[in-house]
């Protein structure tokens, strides 16, 4: 995905270079042994360092902790399924020095939001928010906020050179010339990894506690191919599992399902596009088939569908799909899984014939169509099969 959140640890390291403070936070991988962090006695802040919204509300930020409490907190986070934590020295300050700063990339430039009354209650202080749009020329003479222009210049520069798309510091503690970000969230443009120097994909943080193993496997797979591969588990015990092609068509199909049936029947969302090779399609299908076989639902249908591809080779991709189905054919048959197929594009006749011959030869109940069946009618067929 284009916009990805990076760790607060990395974000603060970047900020420390700009504002010239020494950052002493410790990033903790919660999957490793955390009993030996080597912390000296003192006051600490412990946080979950992932793309989780409203951490405070969920008790994922703990203030004023001593060294042994820190370890307990981290263990607690790990037990809740989080993967990354952050430990920082507790920073004593006056609440009146807390400010709010946010920057966002828009198509007209970078939009700055600022409030001199930052902190946890920023939602209640919305009327104090000032905002100003800076064009891509980085001219800040148009600043209308009360934030120090020197701070703005430094932040804009940091924002641009690191290809950030969103930056929020709340609170930003300003004590005279001393600038200390206590809580920072940064989103970057992941396409820019080649151009940006300050971060790498190792700093990316997922919002979820832990990804489903199938989702994780597809993320790994997607990072090794120029094709697009997406998989999200919606209901592990769903009835209808989807093997879809195309970013647009896949959403259309989901819409159609939701308009004809309860959305909870949908086991997964996902799509493959950009002409993946046979191997990638095979590996992708394997994950969807596994998910489907693991679903406890009684009736199940696999919907293999997409629009009319421009350049994705239907025959080639279907060969990969067939391999994955073939590997699990006994289980698929034992569970009485039905298959509905609709696809068009390069070599569609060949691909559809391969699919139909395979399913028929294995005795799987199926409906295989080309573009003569519309997307709407295809979804209808799949749901009818489920209810029959």
């Amino acid at each position, binding site marked *: 995905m284009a916009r990805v959140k990076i760790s607060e640890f990395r974000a603060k390291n970047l900020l420390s270079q700009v504002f010239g403070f020494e950052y002493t936070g410790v990033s903790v991988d919660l999957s490793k042994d955390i009993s030996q962090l080597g912390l000296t006695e003192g006051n600490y802040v412990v946080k979950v360092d992932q793309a989780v919204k409203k951490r405070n509300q969920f008790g994922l930020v703990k203030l004023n902790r001593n060294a042994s409490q820190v370890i307990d907190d981290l263990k607690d986070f790990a037990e809740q399924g989080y993967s990354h934590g952050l430990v920082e020295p507790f920073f004593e300050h006056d609440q009146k020095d807390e400010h709010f700063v946010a920057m966002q990339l828009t*198509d007209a430039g970078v939009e700055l939001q600022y409030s001199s009354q930052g902190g946890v209650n920023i939602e209640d202080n919305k009327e104090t928010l000032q905002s100003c749009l800076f064009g891509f020329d980085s001219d800040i003479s148009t600043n209308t906020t009360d934030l120090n222009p020197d701070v703005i210049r430094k932040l804009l520069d940091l924002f641009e050179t690191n290809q950030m798309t969103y930056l929020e510091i709340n609170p930003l503690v300003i004590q005279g010339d001393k600038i200390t970000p206590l809580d920072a969230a940064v989103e970057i443009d992941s396409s820019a990894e080649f151009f940006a120097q300050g971060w790498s994909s190792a700093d990316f943080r997922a919002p979820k506690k832990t990804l489903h193993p199938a989702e994780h496997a597809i993320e790994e797979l997607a990072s090794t191919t120029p094709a697009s591969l*997406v998989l999200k588990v919606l209901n592990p015990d769903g009835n209808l599992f989807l093997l879809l092609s*195309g970013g647009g068509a896949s959403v259309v199909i989901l819409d159609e399902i939701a*308009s004809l049936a309860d959305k909870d029947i949908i086991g997964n969302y996902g799509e493959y596009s950009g002409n993946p090779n046979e191997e990638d399609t095979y590996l992708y299908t394997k994950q969807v088939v596994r998910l489907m076989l693991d679903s406890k639902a009684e009736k199940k249908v696999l919907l293999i569908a997409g629009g*009319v591809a*421009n350049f994705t080779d239907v025959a080639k991709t279907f060969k990969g799909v067939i391999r994955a189905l073939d590997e699990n054919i006994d289980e698929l048959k034992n569970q009485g899984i039905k298959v509905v197929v609709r696809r*068009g594009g*390069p070599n569609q006749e060949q691909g559809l014939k391969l699919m139909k011959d395979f399913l028929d030869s294995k005795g799987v109940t199926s409906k295989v169509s080309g573009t003569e069946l*519309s997307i709407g009618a295809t979804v209808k067929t799949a749901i009818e099969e489920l209810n029959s």
Partner: protein
Amino acid sequence: MNIDGLKGKQNLGAVVFGNHPGIIQSTLDFDYLSGKNQPSIRAIIGVQRKSLRYFWGKKEIVLPGYISLKEVPADVLEEIDLFAVAQSGRRAISACEEAIGLLPNVVGGMVFAEGVTERHALKLRELAKQKNIFILGPASVGFLISGVCKIGAIGGTLASQITKSRITKAGSTAVISTSGGVTNELINMIAGFGGSVSFAGAIGGERYPILKPVDLVSLALNDQQTKAIVFFGEVGGRDEYEIAELLKNSANTKPLICYIAGKVAESFEDAPQFGHAKAMAHDPSETASAKRQVLASVGAKVADSFSNFEQLIKETVAEGGQMDDNNTMNDQASDLENRKHAMFVNNVSSDKGGDVRILGKELIEFVGNKSLSQVALSMFLGHEPKSPEFSRFFDLSLRLLVDHGPQVSGAVNTMVTARAGRDLTAGLATGLLTIGPRFGGAINQAAQNWLQAVASGESPQDFVERFASKKEYIAGIGHKKYRVDSPDPRVTKLLAEFKTGDYTNFALEVEKITSNKKAQLILNVDGLIGALTLDMLAEEEGYSLEQIKALVDTEFCNAIFVYARTVGFIAHYLDQKRLDEALFRLPDDQITDLQ
């Protein structure tokens, strides 16, 4: 954005960055099936190879390849109206900047790659606006005007897809979509209902597309040919508000049939991020429902499901009238799909059932009143030379290089082989295989040196210094026997016969410096023939710098020596046989044992 200029032009020109066979061949097939008399793609950029094989109809052709647009001849650059970028996301911005900067008549382009940064896309949006051109993408499958142009994979990559989607015939429905797959789905749907598209554009599902949907809707409203507009949008972003605003204020009204996908997201508490980067509502105004509503409020026909969308499109196409039967077209397309690349392509000659042709002309007619050297020059160049002067130079060079005494290493080897009892081809081959950087094979290297120095504006002093500092010989300078005071008569003859140009003058300046250091460091016959060949190509033949470079890269200049000296080697072989000389053995005193 205006496409009337494109529609009015008979032979549109395009370049493609990156050798993407699907995109390139399907564009050529589109051109061919649309009845054009030449392919729109004039060059492939960003490739190492100088020519790439494709098909025009069933016939195999080659398209020129260049590393950068900067190498493309100026007259070709002027012919280019459109460009397609099929390279990686990382290179997209530099390719677009190159296209915008170097194509004087460019109207538009497309970027196929995903993974273009948001800032780069926004920068390109700004650049395109300044230059008044359109760029679709990133992550766009392209743009097409039925029967006029196709850039990108849009409409399909196989000939049968092109005919099936009827995009070679001008239609009256515009298709605009944020999804490449759905673009093609809609094109095919319209074709299935018997219509065809007036134009179709895939915006791409990125957050900040370079060309926005509203720009294409505006184009459709102004396009005479377009009677109805089909728009596919998705949850996320505010494009539909811009479209609504445009419709509200537009004097032109045309039916806008639309579907905004992603309503399903509203039924999830935490909606998944769909396949496209932009497909996520950041506030309630960006949901599919909100956007459907705003479009409905300005009179658009908003479908509440994809099936309904299909129905609305069907009604519109029916109103617009059916089109002719497409059967003949499909036959033509299936012909195109059964073609195979031959193992070889060549320009030199052909033999079709005994009809032998050289450079496209029947053999007897071709050799006609040409001398052997004129035949050779034409065949070496791959075309007949324009100027008699180049032919005269080539002929004299051949004659001067024909032999240079039996002592030279190639001739010695031929004689030794002849005396060992081997046959003619073995004797000739031994001599030929001796030709290399130190013997006869320096003409091409010399030409490379002169070419590079003159093209880069290097001074003769710097040139000499460059070689001296590396302790390297300069190819084409120096001779074992000849000196300033006893010049090579071949050099004297060539200089007396032919006018010198930039390259030879440069070589002579270099000679002044080197021969001052050492009397034997004169411009030798290799160096002079290399330089004069460049002058002939530039001044008599009208070759561009790039064309000269390409020819020199083929080792054309060495061919002059190899061809000429073949005569000498054969002569020495035959002579040794006539004399019936016995097996040669080096006399003992001619080898010193160092042990």
